[in-house]
């Protein structure tokens, strides 16, 4: 597996002058690596933990270790990489002759390799190295189209935020290493359990902040809506679909495996942060006109939903209900898997639209369902999945999340019941807004009349791109109608870190693809039966429509008697999401500018309208901090004279002070 990615990386550097061959080499070897990765991870899930030690030094034992949790993430990565790589062979044609494909292929392969190393590193030092590698490589991928100024800005914000995150991760690891005396993850587990509660709390909080910055939790999310849209679409699919999940992986690893999820309030923190991320993510997504940015905001939302499941799981675990805790964990893992699939699909879809229309702005599109019929169907499947429509994949995982929140009636803790039900209400709001958001996306982009020349000239994308999307679309459907085959696998993984299997005790699968939760009086859903019902019931309207068939005369859209069939009369995307914008005025703080010129007092010649939404967090949280640092740095400039003698003097002075410390400490 590693070899294939390396072959992909090296060959793309060697062949970087020959665009086509280079792209085939790098992306097909990545796809082959992904296939092997998937087989390997399944073998670990159903088999034994895999160890590979590279150096035997007792202090720094470099090596890999793949348990069921790591294997699950390798599986998620591999599935995404496989589909995205096939998509990429078509998508990079856009860059032929304009950009260096060799660079892209090299970075792409190394990026995937670093993500895989992140989930199977066995000690903290090695982890930090590959984590940093992943961050830096993804930074280079973000700035691949570096000739655009906004891409450079995106890259800058990304690299800063990700390093703030790494700083906190380092702090957390230092707490562990301080107790265990080693950087090996194997020693972190006993060390984590024996630490004092204060140290445990600190280690958890630092890790949560550090990995939260990568996962894109609010308020550390600000890099995400810049970085993901700036990267090439195939890379955004991987960043949004997979890379941010590696942070979730480490959160599970640290809070369950290392710390035993013992802090009773940790779950509430995760739940609250998850809820806030979900709702704010989708609120910004609804009003966003740039479709890739919208998808990035929606990633924040979905990370929030995953964290809601995880938080509920931690609450149940800390309350001594491991079986229910396992259901919530399964819900979170299921949503994680689903999100990587449908978000990958939608990012590739956005990439396809971008490829054939050269615009990311929803307001400029429209009517391309007639030009790109196949892409439209595939993207519609993604849209239905992310909106949690039955029987698609998002429905199953959201249903499981709701049910795991509902299981709070098993707790004797009133605070938990209230917190979990508030979270459920917000989750419901998030779900409804997600449907709103993606309805707008699909309706505005694909339906009605083209709003610009870009959309009029759209044409269907090439076959590799359709195949890449098709794999994910198929998976979205399968994950929706066949949860019976997915849940046992997820149960094994959840059991590996919770310690108890939920299966057959609190969640079970039955005939007709039924999943049920016996502890709640046998609540069950069966998505295959739902699908069958929908299909069989279609006979009724079909019969109504077909018997005594009437003509269907074609006529223009009704416009109160006026001919209005132009795109100018269509409802715009901004108008479509206006009600939400009015509802949450205080959050968006919309600013509008209008400018009208008159040729006579009665006749308006032109009218310009601009409205803008404020990013509250940037405005009120980050800008003050940045300003503060800038002011202080300006002051600090005074001691930076630029003369080497002065710097030597500083070093000398510090040394003297340090010596005095040592001497004072020794005596």
């Amino acid at each position, binding site marked *: 597996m590693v070899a294939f990615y390396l072959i992909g990386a090296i060959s793309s550097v060697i062949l970087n002058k020959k665009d086509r061959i280079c792209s085939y080499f790098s992306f097909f070897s990545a796809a082959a690596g992904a296939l092997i990765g998937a087989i390997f991870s399944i073998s670990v899930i159903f088999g034994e933990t895999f160890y590979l030690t590279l150096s035997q030094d007792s202090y720094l034992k470099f090596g890999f270790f793949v348990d069921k949790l790591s294997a699950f993430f390798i599986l998620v990565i591999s599935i995404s990489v496989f589909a995205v790589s096939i998509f990429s062979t078509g998508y990079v044609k856009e860059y032929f002759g304009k950009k260096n494909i060799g660079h892209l292929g090299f970075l792409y392969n190394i990026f995937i390799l670093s993500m895989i190393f992140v989930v199977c590193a066995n000690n903290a030092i090695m982890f930090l190295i590959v984590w940093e590698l992943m961050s830096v490589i993804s930074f280079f991928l973000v700035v691949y189209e570096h000739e655009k100024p906004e891409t450079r800005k995106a890259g800058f914000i990304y690299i800063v935020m990700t390093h703030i995150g790494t700083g906190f991760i380092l702090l957390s690891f230092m707490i562990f290493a301080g107790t265990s005396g080693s950087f090996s993850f194997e020693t972190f587990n006993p060390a984590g359990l024996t630490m004092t509660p204060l140290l445990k709390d600190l280690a958890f909080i630092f890790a949560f902040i550090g990995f939260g910055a990568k996962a894109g939790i609010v308020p550390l999310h600000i890099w995400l809506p810049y970085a993901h849209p700036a990267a090439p679409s195939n890379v955004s699919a991987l960043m949004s679909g997979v890379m941010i999940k590696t942070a979730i992986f480490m959160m599970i690893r640290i809070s369950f495996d290392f710390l035993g999820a013992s802090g009773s309030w940790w779950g509430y923190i995760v739940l609250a942060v998850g809820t806030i991320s979900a709702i704010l993510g989708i609120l910004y997504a609804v009003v966003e006109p740039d479709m890739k940015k919208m998808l990035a905001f929606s990633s924040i939302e979905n990370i929030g939903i995953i964290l809601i499941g995880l938080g509920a799981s931690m609450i149940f675990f800390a309350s001594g209900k491991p079986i229910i805790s396992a259901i919530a964990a399964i819900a979170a893992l299921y949503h994680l898997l689903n999100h990587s699939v449908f978000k990958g699909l939608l990012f590739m879809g956005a990439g396809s639209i971008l490829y054939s229309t050269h615009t990311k702005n929803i307001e400029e599109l429209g*009517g391309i369902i007639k030009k790109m019929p196949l892409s439209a169907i595939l993207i519609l499947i993604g849209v*239905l999945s992310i*909106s*949690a*429509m*039955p029987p698609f994949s998002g429905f199953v995982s959201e*249903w499981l999340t709701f049910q795991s929140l*509902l299981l709070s*009636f098993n707790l004797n803790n009133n605070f938990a*019941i*209230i917190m979990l*039900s508030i979270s459920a*209400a*917000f*989750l*419901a*709001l998030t779900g*409804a807004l997600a*449907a*709103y958001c993606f*309805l707008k996306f*699909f*309706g505005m982009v694909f*339906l*009605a*009349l083209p709003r610009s020349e870009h959309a009029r000239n759209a044409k269907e994308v090439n076959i590799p791109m359709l195949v890449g999307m098709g794999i994910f679309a198929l998976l979205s459907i399968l994950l929706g109608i066949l949860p019976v085959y997915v849940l046992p696998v997820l149960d094994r993984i959840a059991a590996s870190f919770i310690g108890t299997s939920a299966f057959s005790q609190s969640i079970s699968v039955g005939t007709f693809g*039924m999943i*049920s939760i016996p502890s*709640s009086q*046998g*609540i*069950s*859903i069966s998505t295959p*039966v*739902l699908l069958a019902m*929908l299909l069989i*019931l*279609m006979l*009724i309207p079909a019969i*109504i429509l077909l018997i*005594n068939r*009437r*003509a*269907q*005369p074609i*006529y*223009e*859209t*009704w*416009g109160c008697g006026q001919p*209005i069939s132009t*795109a100018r*009369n*269509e409802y715009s995307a901004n*108008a479509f999401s*206006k*009600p*939400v914008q*009015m*509802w949450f005025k205080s959050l968006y703080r919309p600013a509008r500018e209008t400018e009208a010129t008159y040729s006579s007092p009665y006749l308006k010649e032109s009218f310009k309208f601009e409205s803008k939404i404020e990013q509250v967090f940037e405005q009120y949280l980050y800008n003050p901090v940045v300003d503060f640092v800038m002011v202080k740095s300006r002051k600090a400039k005074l001691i930076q004279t630029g003369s080497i003698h002065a710097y030597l003097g500083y070093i000398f002075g510090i040394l003297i002070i340090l010596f005095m410390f040592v001497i004072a400490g020794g005596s």
Partner: protein
Amino acid sequence: MIAQIIFQLFIIIALAPLLSGIMKKVKAFFQIRKGPGVLQPYYDILKLLQKDSVVSTNVSWIFHAAPIVSFVAVLAAGLLIPIYITQLSLGFAGDLIAVIYLFALARFFTALASLDAGSSFGGMGGSREMFIASLVEPALMLSIFAVALNVGSTNLGFISQTVSGLGFDAVSPYQILAFVALFIIAIAETGRIPVDNPATHLELTMIHEAMILEYSGKQLAIVELGAMIKQLLIYSLLANIFFPWGIATGGAGALAMVFAILVYVIKIIIIGITMAVVETSTAKWRLFRLPELMSISLMLSFLAIVAFIIVKGG
């Protein structure tokens, strides 16, 4: 088993226009009008079935598929809701949350089709419909939580059976609060005043009517029938979650079934009349005042949960 499915389908399809007709008649009574007969909705649908469908030049296949998908999603939800018996043959296929998501699927496709013709009316209707759906959803989920906390399940058949088994003991503060919350939601979900006016075609106020403006003929018949069935189902949810008394349980004889159906029809008509009274006695609210209405519902459901904790957890 199959007989039960077909019979339930038959009941909901056959009763839905009648309920609409009765509600129109009640409204006419309060407006001191004679109003059309209660069978008028049947005639309307039969008439529409004889007509050609005019289709816009701009539309794609979504426009043709949407009425079918929406109609089917509503019917599928109808098979998951207890109507006259708590043991549903297909009850295992989905619980209350699945029912809500099926309604969401129906709404999603209707709203999608509203954008397809490129008319501003459609977009306006779709946008408002999705806005109201977003308002309703949190309140709805919280009231489901309140009900589910009480019964310990979201399985609809089980809820009906438990509450019906409790008899009048089931009347409790949290049930009442949750009922009022769900009643407000039902107003919004069925597009009644003060949320939406089903009788208007004024562009500034219509929501559901704006979405389906481009439909005509047979397609319109399906859309209209689907909307009527959805209304019937939402009232059935209210009736059989909170007042399931009289509903037949497993192993009931033919007589009990007939009795259960009669009781069901009476319950639905009472709820329909109440809804019509509420509708005639209020004015339509401005769209941007609706968040207030939904906050009331949200708060009521929240209070229901708190009341449950106080009464049960004490």
